[in-house]
């Protein structure tokens, strides 16, 4: 791992040699002429990140233009942190971790991380970005009892142990654990990254250790906050991106104070990337978010109101969007998703329904449920045959893929499914619905956030085939938060969501999605919570197969050997396929991406995925540019 990281760092460094002649950005020309901004050569770090654009679909471009996007709610401003994808280390398009904001990263034994910053790198307000910003985070945020009552976050701990933090010099910091920490770098590179630095020069004004007490109290009162910690948190949410004053390292910086129905992000004058011709990135001057109700986003996109849009549009909209291509200057690209399944049903193994719990926890019962789904019909009826039927598991693009993971217990076989249920002692009543031992009808409620109309259509098809199995399925749409809370508490027996978040893992991807590690996992929220809270909340695992998954994951964490890791991954995948912990339906459904015809460097075939990928982030939206001159 170390070798790879250093190699990439070297490429970035050598290319910097050509940085002698930087091109001033037209957007800032006036400000530079008036002396409000330093010229571009002084704004860039001494060794900028040089992006070499020389692929068939990647060419160096020109400055200028606005990128219009449609969003459904003001909180979506956080997506600019996702799309911008400036990270200390980030994934490249081969899904390798490479330094980005960092000029170099040294990793020793997977436990000593030395981070080298770029000399002369500045925040978007012009203040230097240095080791002091890391020190401020570590001492005054992560270890401040008011801001972080439970200490540093989970990714900074290995078996509960926090790292030793050192400032080596003004641009070098080091984190040292006694054991390897495989979570550290992926957390920094996430679509929702963990920040281990804060703009100290700005935030010190809100911190009692540095700010004048009376001054701070006045600010707290003016902001109507309870205490300084609340005010500090409100001012410092780098991911949420809702404070236009907060300095940033992202390519575009928020200008509009929320709430608003229209947000403007302008280019960061001190951004650290340049193209090979010395043009500071991003090419595009401004990004705008227009708020629209979710139901209207497809219509507005088809009317040409967006220059780059994938959010809020889905498979269902492809035909309408394609028709709009003739009238409006955009084209529709079909990207892939890296999700394990487009729609998956999660039996809640932690359900509190005393009648249904023994069934849901019974492997045979879950297999019967899976066998009684006609995935081909779903694919044809809902996805016009463009998806791929199968379980919720890794995709064929992953090196860990085996076809049995996809097909086991996933064929449509009502006879076998009925035989299984007959064997479980569930007789049918006169209406053909089975009866539970308690005499109750076998009626199951599947709860869905119902945000996506395809989800409901899939469930209707499942409903009709499960009826032939003697199960009366009811679909209950409810709000996302309510759904989550009902699953967490065990009130929900079945829930629906998309499948695995990252179905393109390799052996070195942390297998957290495979085993109970998070409350957010709809199959076993309580076991996940138990793990997350270190045993303080939730419930311990009490199912042998799930225990085995947890043990395999633990083994994976303790080994660094890729072959061994690959074997462990495949063991886990095999168990999941055999135990049917999630019931997948259809996968690899195309995701439409609408792109202005003038916009360059957007790949024709990409992967639209949250983690890893950060949606557009991994394709570097700061390198997208307009072919027609929009500098004015």
């Amino acid at each position, binding site marked *: 791992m170390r070798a790879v990281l250093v190699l990439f760092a070297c490429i970035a460094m050598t290319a910097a040699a050509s940085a002698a002649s930087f091109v001033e950005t037209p957007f800032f020309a006036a400000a530079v002429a008036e002396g409000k901004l330093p010229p571009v050569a002084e704004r860039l770090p001494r060794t900028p990140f040089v992006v070499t654009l020389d692929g068939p679909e990647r060419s160096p471009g020109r400055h200028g233009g606005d990128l219009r996007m449609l969003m459904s709610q003001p909180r979506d401003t956080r997506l600019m942190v996702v799309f911008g994808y400036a990270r200390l280390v980030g994934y490249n398009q081969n899904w390798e971790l490479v330094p980005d904001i960092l000029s170099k990263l040294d990793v020793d034994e997977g436990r000593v991380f030395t981070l080298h910053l770029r000399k002369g790198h500045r925040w978007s307000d012009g203040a230097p970005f240095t080791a002091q910003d890391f020190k401020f985070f570590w001492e005054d945020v992560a270890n401040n009892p008011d801001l972080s009552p439970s200490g540093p976050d989970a990714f900074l701990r290995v078996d509960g142990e926090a790292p030793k933090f050192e400032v080596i010099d003004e641009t070098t910091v080091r984190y040292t654990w006694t054991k390897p920490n495989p979570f550290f770098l992926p957390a920094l590179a996430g679509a929702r990254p963990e920040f281990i630095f804060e703009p100290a020069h700005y935030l010190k004004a809100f911190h009692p250790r540095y700010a004048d007490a009376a001054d701070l109290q006045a600010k707290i009162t003016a902001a109507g906050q309870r205490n300084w910690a609340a005010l500090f948190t409100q001012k410092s949410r780098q991911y949420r991106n809702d404070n236009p004053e907060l300095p940033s390292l992202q390519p575009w910086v928020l200008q509009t104070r929320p709430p608003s129905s229209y947000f403007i992000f302008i280019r960061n004058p001190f951004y650290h990337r340049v193209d090979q011709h010395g043009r500071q990135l991003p090419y595009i001057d401004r990004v705008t978010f227009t708020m629209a109700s979710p*139901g209207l986003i*497809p*219509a507005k996109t*088809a009317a040409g109101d967006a220059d780059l849009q994938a959010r809020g549009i889905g*498979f*269902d*909209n*492809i*035909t*309408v969007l*394609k*028709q709009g291509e003739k009238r409006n200057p955009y084209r529709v690209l079909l990207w892939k998703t890296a999700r394990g399944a487009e729609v998956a049903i999660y039996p809640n193994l932690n359900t509190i329904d005393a009648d249904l719990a023994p069934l849901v926890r019974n492997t045979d019962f879950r297999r019967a449920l899976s066998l009684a789904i006609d995935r081909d*019909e779903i694919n*044809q*009826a*809902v996805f*016009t*045959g*463009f998806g791929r039927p199968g379980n919720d598991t890794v995709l064929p693009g992953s090196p860990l893929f085996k076809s049995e993971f996809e097909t086991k217990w996933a064929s449509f076989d009502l006879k076998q499914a009925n035989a299984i249920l007959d064997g479980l002692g569930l007789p049918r009543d006169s209406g053909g619905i089975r009866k539970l031992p308690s005499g109750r009808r076998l*009626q199951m*409620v599947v709860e869905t956030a*119902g945000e996506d*109309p395809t989800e409901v*259509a899939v469930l*209707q*098809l499942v*409903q*009709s085939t499960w009826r032939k199995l003697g199960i009366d399925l*009811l*679909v*209950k*749409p409810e709000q996302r938060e309510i759904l989550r809370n009902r699953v967490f508490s065990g009130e929900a027996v079945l829930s629906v969501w998309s499948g695995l978040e990252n179905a393109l893992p390799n052996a070195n991807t942390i297998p957290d999605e495979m085993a109970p590690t998070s409350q957010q996992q709809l199959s076993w929220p309580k076991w996940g919570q138990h793990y997350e809270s270190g045993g303080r909340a939730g419930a311990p695992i009490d199912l042998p197969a799930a225990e085995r998954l947890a043990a395999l994951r633990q083994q994976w964490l303790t080994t660094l050997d890729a072959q061994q890791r690959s074997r462990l991954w495949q063991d886990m995948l095999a168990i999941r396929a055999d135990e049917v912990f999630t019931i997948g339906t259809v996968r690899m459904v*195309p995701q439409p991406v609408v792109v202005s015809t003038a916009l360059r460097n957007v790949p024709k075939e990409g992967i639209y995925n949250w983690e890893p990928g950060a949606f557009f982030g991994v394709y570097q939206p700061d390198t997208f540019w307009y072919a027609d001159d929009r500098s004015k």
Partner: protein
Amino acid sequence: MSNGAPPLPHFVDPRPFDPDETEQLTAEQERYSLASQWQLMWWRFRQHRVAVLCGAVLLALYGMILISEILAPYALESRNTGFIYAPPQAIRLFHDGQFIGPFVYGLEYSVDLETMARRYEVDRTDVQRIRFFCLGDPYAFWGLVPGRFHLMCPAEGGTLFLLGTDRLGHDMLSRIIYGARISLTVGLIGIAISFVLGITIGGLAGYFGGWVDGIVQRIIEVLRSLPELPLWMALSAALPISWSPVLIYFGITVILGLLDWPGLARAVRSKLLALREEDYCTAARLMGASPPRIIGRHLLPNFMSHLIASATLSIPSMILGETALSFLGLGLRPPITSWGVLLIEAQNIEAVVLYPWLMLPMVPVIVTVLAFNFLGDGLRDAADPYSTTGH
């Protein structure tokens, strides 16, 4: 007379005395004056042509829901996965210039790989004759008697989607016919509930007046000031999911009924406040009649006609209420089919641009609501048969 003048000539008409001599009634007039109030209303109503027509339309619609299973070419659950989003098929009579009776041309399905659209081409060589009075999809008549008899069926192996199909390949015409059963009766049951509540509560308030009236009025004011739609939504969200669809249906009607009574109660109350001061009311009271008897027997019949008219006018709001709730996903749910449930599918841009036939359930909603409005209009005019305005 006292001055002794001769008396004035004396005349007695030998004909028998007829007090009505100057205003002799024709047979027609006689019938009119002897007619009961209901008869008068009926005569009056008959003059309102549009109302009569609308009444006939409604009778036909309600007649249809008695035999939905027979009228619908497909069974409710019948899915045609091979014909998803198929456009409406036109009924034709002539093939190759020859009359061969009602038939449809077959559809040929293909997928446009460029736009990912489903395409259906009309195959002009594939003549599929519509069968009448035929055996088709099996069903349970009113959920009880199994049967297969339909008014019309697709040709053997053919299709008959006169109004197209939806995203799961259900025939829209059949679904609209089945949906009528729910959508039309929601209004009746709801109005029955609100009628009982309105008359009882309004009657008590009007008859007793005083603090009873005060409390009822305040309750009505509170109920009226609540925004309707959010209240419906809150109440219907409270219906437990595990209820069977039939129970949910009753739950919705009860909700609609429970919220609709205040208007009626106010009308009853104000009428009663005036009528209870009448002599016959005092007489009844003095003779020892109980309040329910006085209200029900002596007071209400005075304006029953008015009540019926106003009830008719509020049925459409019930139907629209059900449609709105279902449209918002808070009312009825599949597998129950109502017009509102069908319209959920028409909520997106695809329905407008690509599959406009998904919006067809709007047509029966509009027709029904208009028909009820005109009928109510006619009834209202007729309810006061002695007025002469306009006729």
